[in-house]
């Protein structure tokens, strides 16, 4: 969370919920840092979590571009995620029943093309119709895609899944062998609890690098697109499509753009997932992914890119953080207890989050135009410019 | 600010010694953290028609919403027959005998006209059918569409329905937000006529109107509200004839 040049002024400029979030995030980051340094948190595991958080952030970016911007209710996040994951896996894995062995970059392109086609297929008939059509069709689509992946063995290996997936940087100069060539490091910060950085650590760092690149690029594109007349039309559609039509906006085309954009981002998350876990199976298309993407977007605040990022981190904290609560010995069965905790945390966050945690209430006006016009810039409108872009 | 012909705000000097049916005294109120009403005092005596006028965003609707429990007064009191009802829930206030016609969103779009009227009478003990028939007689414009869904009504037809819905309770006090907005001149005249008639049956009426000539025309008294504060108060003649008032607020 670097607040660039003038941290004090920047902080003073923040709204109350933003300060709250900033405070909590800073405290959390400190906590993590302390945990890392004392060896209480394994660095490789931490990087894995960061990768997961990045993946969820990508998913919520994608959903945010659809629901948050335009109000498109997409219940097939898992399907697009799965298409991305399978698209890349089937192109690159040596166990792929159809192609296999290609460079992961080819996998990336194929995955995006597949997601693009699928988005068009579902968008064309439904986006012209009433809003809940998409909800219904996507609900069905998710199931259809999952079943096809599960049952069409000639295409996907069926329930066995695809294995033998290379890491994303396989075949790249330097990077492909980087983890093996790095020496094992042994850091001693606190005597007696050294921190070991070995091959798996370097491999995990590469993954983090990859997800940061994906998420960073997505974030930049989305931020520019959202804070623009384009994003404004989307928000108008979200709120009152008729009004947008009356003002001469081709709402069908805008909705399609937003839908396709979001779907591509979800597929990107899938591509990352494939090369993170090196294995994909039909279970990865389980609707639970859709669930969590929605939770992330809502927790972060619909329509806010920073919120989506934040939501992604929160999801990982909820899902994986609760594993540590099991360490506390309790007289009850720990497994459902974690489920219970996840439930309680979700309810509690909804109950006690300060109103508008990273609210979407950003003025969607091209930032430089605000300055040019010399009009007094609304405090909220430019703030995203100053601090928002740099949340980690 | 005030001049001789109009009494300054808040100088409710016990008009003829009658107790008001409804009074707001020194009320501050607003939405969330946004204050709209600022030390606002308004009274409604038995049998009166009082008209609130003022610029857009002055807080006229907010006065009605505060009186009707949609908003809780931050400070000050809302009294009905001398009892403090500030912050009482609207559904209970209805039962006390106050009716309210909102400015926007004032019909149940997915219910039929008939059902809309029935909803107006949920707090009644009996005689619902008779009242509704009377109302149909009085407003033929909706009588013709009894079984139509309210969302298919034209803007003006809705306004009439909303007014009729509030009358089902035969309230003691009626709060109306811009009854004539969007009405054809002849229909508006009818509605004002109806307001009069309802008033004749001993219902005190507090009304917001932008059609100042007609609104003040049927009123006994008027208030000019600006930026949440009562600027002027007086009889319709006093207000209409006041240069400043007329210039600033009444489009004269």
């Amino acid at each position: 969370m670097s607040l660039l040049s003038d941290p004090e002024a920047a902080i003073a400029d923040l709204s109350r919920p933003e300060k709250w979030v900033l405070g909590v995030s800073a405290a959390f980051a400190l906590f993590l840092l302390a945990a890392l340094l004392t060896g209480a948190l394994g660095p490789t595991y931490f990087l894995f979590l960061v990768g997961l958080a990045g993946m969820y952030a990508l998913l919520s970016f994608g959903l945010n571009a659809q629901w948050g911007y335009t109000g498109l209710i997409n219940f097939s996040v898992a399907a697009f995620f799965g298409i991305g994951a399978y698209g890349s896996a089937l192109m690159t894995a040596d166990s792929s029943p159809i192609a296999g062995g290609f460079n992961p970059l080819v996998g990336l392109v194929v995955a995006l093309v597949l997601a693009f086609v699928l988005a068009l297929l579902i968008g064309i008939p439904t986006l012209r119709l009433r809003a809940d059509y998409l909800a219904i069709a996507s609900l069905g689509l998710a199931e259809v895609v999952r079943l096809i992946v599960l049952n069409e063995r000639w295409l996907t290996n069926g329930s066995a899944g695809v294995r033998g997936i290379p890491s994303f940087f396989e075949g790249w100069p330097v990077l492909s062998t980087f983890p093996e060539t790095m020496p094992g490091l042994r850091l001693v910060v606190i005597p007696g609890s050294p921190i070991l950085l070995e091959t798996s650590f370097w491999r995990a760092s590469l993954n983090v690098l990859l997800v940061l690149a994906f998420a960073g690029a997505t974030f930049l594109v989305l931020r520019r697109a959202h804070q623009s007349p384009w994003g404004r039309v989307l928000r108008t559609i979200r709120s009152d499509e008729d009004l947008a039509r009356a003002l001469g906006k081709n709402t069908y085309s805008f909705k399609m753009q937003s839908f396709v954009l979001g779907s591509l981002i979800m597929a990107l998350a899938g591509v990352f997932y494939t090369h993170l876990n090196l294995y994909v199976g039909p279970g990865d298309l389980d609707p639970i992914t859709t669930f969590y993407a929605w939770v992330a977007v809502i927790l972060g605040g619909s329509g806010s890119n920073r919120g989506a990022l934040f939501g992604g981190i929160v999801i990982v904290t909820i899902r994986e953080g609760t594993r540590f609560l099991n360490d506390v010995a309790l007289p009850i069965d720990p497994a459902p207890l974690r489920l219970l905790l996840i439930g309680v945390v979700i309810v509690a966050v909804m109950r006690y989050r300060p109103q508008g945690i990273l609210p979407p209430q950003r003025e969607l006006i091209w930032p430089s135009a605000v300055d040019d016009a010399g009009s007094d810039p609304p405090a909220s409108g430019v703030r995203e410019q100053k601090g928002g872009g740099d949340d980690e | 600010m005030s001049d001789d012909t109009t009494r300054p705000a808040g100088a409710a000097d016990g008009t003829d010694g009658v107790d008001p049916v409804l009074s707001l005294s020194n009320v501050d109120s607003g939405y969330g953290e946004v204050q709209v009403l600022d030390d606002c005092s308004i009274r409604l005596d038995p049998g009166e028609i009082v008209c609130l006028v003022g610029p857009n965003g002055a807080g006229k609707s907010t006065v009605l919403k505060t009186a009707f429990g949609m908003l809780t007064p931050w400070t000050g009191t809302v009294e009905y027959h001398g009892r403090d009802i500030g912050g009482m829930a609207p559904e209970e206030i209805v039962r006390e005998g106050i009716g309210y016609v909102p400015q926007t969103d004032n019909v149940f779009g997915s219910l039929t006209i008939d059902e809309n009227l029935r909803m107006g009478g949920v707090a009644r003990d009996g005689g619902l059918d008779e009242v509704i028939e009377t109302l149909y007689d009085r407003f033929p414009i909706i009588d013709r569409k009894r079984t139509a869904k309210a969302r298919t009504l034209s803007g003006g037809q809705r306004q009439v329905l909303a007014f009729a819905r509030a009358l089902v309770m035969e309230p003691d006090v009626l709060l109306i937000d811009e009854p004539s907005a969007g009405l054809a001149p002849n229909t508006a005249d009818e509605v004002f006529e109806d307001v009069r008639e309802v008033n004749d049956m001993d219902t005190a009426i507090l009304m917001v109107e932008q059609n100042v000539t007609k609104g003040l025309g049927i009123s006994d008294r008027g208030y000019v509200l600006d930026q949440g504060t009562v600027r002027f108060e007086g009889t319709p003649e006093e207000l209409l004839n006041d240069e400043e008032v007329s210039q600033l607020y009444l489009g004269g």
Partner: protein
Amino acid sequence: LSTTDDGEDGSDGSDGSDGSDGSDGSDGEDGSDGEDGSDGGDAGPYEIGMVDSLTGSLSAFGERNQRGVELALQRVNDVGINGRELDLIVEDSESENQGGIAAAQKLVNQDGVPFLIGAVGSGVSLAIYESVVQDTDVVQLSQNSTGLDLTNFPGLLRMSPSGRSQSLALADIIADDGYDEVAITYVNNDYGQSLTDAFVNAWDGDIAYNNPHDQEQQSYSSVVSEMNSSGADAWLFITYQAEFATMVNEVYSSGYEAQFYGADSVSGDNVIENTPEGSMEGMKIVVPSAPVEEENYQAFADAFESEYGQQPTSWAAYAYDCVINAALAVQAADEFTGSALQDTVRRVSGPDGEEVTSFEAASQILADGGGPDDVDYQGVSGPIDFDENGDPVGFLQVLEVQDHDYEGIDFVEG
């Protein structure tokens, strides 16, 4: 800050029982790290990990596993390992790849366990192996996965035998019973699919119906009615108990008649309890097992019964054996590291050495100075004896439902 050269070169100590010597030197350091990490001096417990399906669609199996685990931990900790306790950190896979991988990541990279028991579903076990375990020297031992694919991953051990032997046995039994046509329904996942494939390969007769069904559906009446319409008199079920119990009830209340056969996971007390008397009469099921009359199984069953008030399932038995085997591997190893355990995990239950049937007895041998090859732990689920693919030597028992209860009628060697 110092540089360690940790022996990646020990490639995998899994392909042989003797391949780990080379990496000992550098792992010595790891060993002490592991202990430091787990907040203990010598008195602290040995921490190993387990990924289990505690929630999600296979949570019933997870629950059965946990009963076996509890019992096994009691046995182990009654005796102790080198005076220390064994601690098992259990993480939930949510019965999904994503959850399983995350759980394994935590256990391996956060808790630093050198020995990982997991997981239930074959798909999840493989997912964990490929993405977390493969390039490390952590030992992975799956408690319940019977999918055929696991055989291709020698580094991934399992306690439950490959389903192939079951499928072959079933094909023989059905043919011996005089049927030349069979209707099959299988649960639509790696387990169901691979067992069915193996069966179809081995089966010479006709297959009148062969379709998957999804787990956790609220009704399987279309499945059973299609099986009935197929005209086959022998019906083979390769699915889980909950699904199977539903099907049996639907067959019963639809009034269909057929000779049932089933793979191991359709058997269980809960199936007997929740199906009507006579609804499965004569059904034959092939289950991996230790010869049931053996005393160690009896002792296990009695203890289980008194603890939980019911007969153990094979899943509890597998999990039990996983823990005991792990405990013995720990005790037999020079140090608490993955590579050391890679070496001992196979040997303590391997065919060399004295056959023992309890942890206590095995531990005694080791404590008396015996090496890993001096012990041959005989599990309650079978003799174990991992082969070069990491699969146990399976003993199969054929059960028949008689008077609405399982009766062992035969043994088949895997």
